[in-house]
């Protein structure tokens, strides 16, 4: 256990936000979900008691009969926000006094630093470069992330959950978000910051970042594993595999979105869901297709990471223009 190394990594001013992230993201996820579950219990209570539902529209916990239905922004919201502003200012003050801007030496065009890392908020993208062709990881995925975020309001047909935390009413939205943000974005940033060392090699926390480290690793393209030769054959094979993936994942995702039952070997993997059925019925074809495409691509990312790490597969589909 190289504590000197660990401390060096953790204490670099550049990495302080990431260390904070490690604690803050789980905490607020938990905190938000706790509120959501409390509200869900209230929702159940209100649904069970139509009289109360009529008189008490406050949708958040804690709640007691007789409390005001609504409170004013001023002072009840603003004073809390003011307190929050004070606390955040205090944190920023202390931070800026104790940690200086992480300036390093003047850049030298003939000497690349190793590891050479992007700013922390881009480290997720940089980590993706390990698994995908730069064209994919550097251009296509970032664009799709932006496009995907932009289309959310247009494909979201669920009207519930405005102005209050709820898990029950927005289960799929919350799970998708947790998957996209925490699994695909934050954890990749954490890996890129704390785990990736010289040569962009995988160093567990506490391992010495040794510049001399060598690792034997051979990555192969999927067609090569199957012994397929010839450019055209490889191309066709890759396209077939990708097509297969799209069909299978699309089919499973469809079952989820549409809320229909999926039975595999006599076991119900996905149960029927009346709520989702209702939402699905409201969606137009365009909304549905967009959502499907985004979800298929989103799921592809961890699958690719997994097969790269587990089976040393470099690319599945190799073409002269792009590789997946």
């Amino acid at each position, binding site marked *: 256990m190289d504590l000197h190394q660990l401390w060096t990594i953790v204490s670099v001013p550049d990495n302080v936000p990431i260390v904070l992230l490690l604690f803050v993201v789980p905490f607020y996820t938990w905190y938000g979900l706790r509120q959501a579950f409390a509200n869900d219990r209230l929702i159940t209570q209100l649904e069970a008691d139509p009289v109360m539902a009529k008189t008490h529209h406050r949708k958040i916990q804690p709640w007691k009969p007789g409390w005001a239905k609504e409170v004013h922004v001023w002072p009840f919201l603003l004073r809390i926000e003011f307190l929050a502003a*004070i606390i955040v*200012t205090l944190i920023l003050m202390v931070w800026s*006094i104790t940690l200086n801007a992480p300036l390093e*030496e003047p850049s030298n065009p003939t*000497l690349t630093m190793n590891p050479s890392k992007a700013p922390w908020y881009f480290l997720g993208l940089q980590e993706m470069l390990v698994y995908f062709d730069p064209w994919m990881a550097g251009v296509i995925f970032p664009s799709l992330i932006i496009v995907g975020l932009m289309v959310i309001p247009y494909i979201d047909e669920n009207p519930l959950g405005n102005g209050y935390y709820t898990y029950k009413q927005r289960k799929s939205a919350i799970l998708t978000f947790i998957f996209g943000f925490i699994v695909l974005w934050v954890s990749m940033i954490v890996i890129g910051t704390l785990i990736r060392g010289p040569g962009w090699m995988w160093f567990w926390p506490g391992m010495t970042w040794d510049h001399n480290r060598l690792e034997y690793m051979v990555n192969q393209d999927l067609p090569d594993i199957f012994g397929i030769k010839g450019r055209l054959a490889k191309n066709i094979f890759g396209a077939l595999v990708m097509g297969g993936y799209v069909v299978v994942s699309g089919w499973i995702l469809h079952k989820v979105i549409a809320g229909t039952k999926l039975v595999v070997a006599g076991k119900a993997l996905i149960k029927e869901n009346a709520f989702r059925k209702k939402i699905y019925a409201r969606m137009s074809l365009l909304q549905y297709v967009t959502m499907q495409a985004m979800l298929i691509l989103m799921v592809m990312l961890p699958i690719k990471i997994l097969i790269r790490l587990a089976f040393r597969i470099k690319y599945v589909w190799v073409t002269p223009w792009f590789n997946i």
Partner: protein
Amino acid sequence: MSDLEKDPVVTSSLSKQLLIWTALLMLSLVWGLWDEVYGTRPWKSYQARFVKVYSQFLGKQRPKEGDFEKQIKASAEYKKLDQAMQDAEKAVSAQVREIDRKVNEELVPRTLALNEPFQDLRSEIGALTYQIEITKSESSKNSLRADIDKVKKKVKTAKLPNPDGSTEKKDFTYDQMDRQLQDWKAEKARLLQQRVDLLKPATELRAKRDKFVSDQIADVSADTLAGVQRGLERFDIAIRQIHVKDIDLVDRCESCHLGTREPVTLTKAAMGGEAVFTSHPDKELLKIHDPDKFGCTPCHGGNGVAVASTVKAHGRHTYWLWPMHYPENVQAGCQQCHVKEIVTEMADSLNAGREIFRLRGCMGCHRYEGFDHEPEELTSVNQEIRQISQQKAEWEREIGFTTKKADTTRDNNEAQRLYAHADNLKVRISGLDAKTEQLDMRAASLIREVKKVGPSLKEVRMKMRKEWIPVWLQDPNKWRPGTKMPTFRLDNEEIQAISAFIWQSGVTGIVPTQSNGDPTRGREAFETRGCMACHSMGEGNEKQGGTFAANLSRVGEKDNHDYLVRWIHNPRERTAPYCSFEKRDLTADDYKKKGLPYVFDLDHTKCPNDGHELQVQQMTPMPSLRLTIEEARDIAAYVETRKHVDFNYPAADYMDDPKLKARGQFLVRYYGCAGCHEISGLEEEQRIGTELTKEGSKPLERLDFALLGHEAQAEKAPSKDDTRGWYTHKGFFEHKLQDPAIYDKGKEKPNKLDRLKMPNFNLTKPEIDQVTTFLLGSVDSTMPERYHYEPSDARQDIIDGWWVIAKYNCMGCHQVHVGQSTVFMKLARYQDPDWKDQKPPSLIGEGSRVDPAWLMRFLNNPALSETDTNRDGVRPYLKARMPTFSFSDGEIRKLVRFFAALSSQATPYIVPKLVPISDQERVMARQLFSSEGAPCLKCHATGDPKHDQRATAPNFLLAKERLKPGWTERWMLHPEMMAPGTAMPSGLFRRDGDRWVFAGPTPASFNNYPKDHADLLVRYMFQFTPDELNRLRSSAAAGAGR
């Protein structure tokens, strides 16, 4: 609604939390302010402390200086000067007062009063004149001119003040005013000049009085101290920075290092133990490199802008590329601009580092610009010669074509043009020939200049017993502690193969058999002829002599007598000449085939096969002492007695095994032996190491710390303001020099050839520091080119000359610059009073002493004779002897210009014309020369062998050609100033009015002689003839007989 349970959103209070957090926020604000004002500005507290300790120091110092000054001022001398000054002032005071009154009370107020109306009119006229200039029509111009005349005729009344306070009204026109003002101004100037003239004696006396005081005080006067103290009282706590706009440099070092440039010398003890406030230790250096022009960080390193902490300001953290040098390496800063030099004044440690790099053979493997450049230069000269000959052939062809074309053309003009073109080409070809001639000479020079660090290994078969070689290779430093040869990490197999290759590749030749000499005489010769200026003898504490060449204490164990005699007699003598064109040693057969005698020496340097320049010398800097063969035998005999009694080398029959040769050659090439030694078949080998010219600025990441990188980073640095451990350039160099294999530590390298091959030079700690200093300074300088020391005047000659001086170890015998000691000065024998004057002469001021043309001849042949070479041309009375170095023309030129430049002499030297000496003057001078008051010939050599045995100074016959008259006169007047401790008597002349006269009794003929006696003697000496010498000698003999 239940009152008990109020809605917490509405009823809960946040005041407590708001209070706490607001208080914390306020605290952070205070913290932030403190951090802003003090936390990130530690220099403020430094400045406050400085004012405190400095005031205390001055408080203690001032009364001391004050008392001392009071004493001086109480002295009679001071009082006399003061009185004289005051008398002079008093004598003119009435006149001065009158002038002051007139100027200040009359002229100035009246001028001011009149100036006002005058300026008024002048601006009016100016405006009108401008209108004339821009008006087009002549009539309007005329009308404007008329307006000007009108203005000029206007009468203005001026109120002129009188000295008594009343005013006087007076009318003026413009012209009158102008005239009046001019008159007053002239009057004022006249009066002021008069005032200056009146006060001149008093001013001069005051300066004299003040100088008397300042001459008595070594450091600073009480007045200065008081000034400093007054300054401290008004001390302003602020950043102190040097801004050199020119190079975009901002250095704030003096914000903390406040004592650096104080007029008082501040020591650590005086400043309460705070080293940060001490003065710069070398004021002389600061005079040359004024901090206002050079800043601090260009020399010292560090981050001049940073003031937030010592770590940042000193730049000793990972991200500052130019960290401050440690004290032991501080001279690294010199190297970046003085990169062309081998000797830099005031940088002893850097000089030592460069010398190790040169002398110990680092440059054999590592290229460094300027070091051992001759082989490269030779290649480029040869290249140029080839290009010129191609050009010549091309032009010759063109001449042929052009002429042919001109012969056949019908157009007369065209034909003439073509002929002219052909003629031009012919003339240009002759220019090429001249250039080729110069290049050929340069190539011949360069071949002479190429030297190797180690001895030639071609000669081993004749030179030594072979069993010694493997023993030596095992650990040279063990066999001969302090040797130049480094220790390679060789195993037995490698040693055997290398020895076998060296032995088998040696050339064979015949060395004349020599009879034995007399070791006792040999020892005397060895110790007195000058061998010890380079070589040392004796082991351990008994070691005596120079370190430039090998210690000879065990030579008797290995060398052959015959070869050794030849070597001592003339070390440059080669067994066979080497042709770099054919890349082999020539044999007698090569000469025989061409019908030539097998003769090769400095006069026969052309290859019989292809006409190229041959290497006809051993590439050693060791010179010939022009000893007789008998003396060489004696010295050899003496050296051979030097051996361990119990030496015993195991038999080495494998060295004749031809199977080992190929492997040996591979290893010799692999380890780069040819970098320092001349080896058959490997003469044209390239250097095997990395170039070090810019090693100090190589990115740290490119220095291979191998597995030690993390250890280096985690270990403690030599200073607490350093956060980098020894993961620095300094650390890398020091560890590498200490143990060149260190970066192989822990590495898995089963193949020996993969391991680091740099051998261990067994350097001591100070030597490591010196080399590290040199390497740390070897950077891509951050200073612009014009700051580099590349003078275009005579100083360049000094730079060039030092390389030659260092190359041939001139400083082993001679003092070349002030304060330098020679090997001779330290030898035990020369401490004896009888031997003191036997030391080789000092060369300080040599350039002003000797005629450069003579010096050139002397350096070329120090015997100053073609036939009688067993002598020293100038000082035959010295046992030590100026050897023949066989300098190349280029080296002689450099040396002569070096000495001239060191003594600020103009080049070329034009011999001054002296007034011819009259017959009468000659008689007078002759009488003085042989008089008892000036027994010149007692010490100076005369050419009479009996007399010269006791002579201790050169022959006068040499003076005319050798010396410069100006120097000769200065020498006669004050020899003790030029060479303290010289045998030449001082005070021979005394000042009489504006001439020098002989101080002792003068012959009667000197009565009524009005001219300068010293000058007379100089003229006499410079018009000296052998006849005159004989005449003198006989009269001196007669005088002695009397």
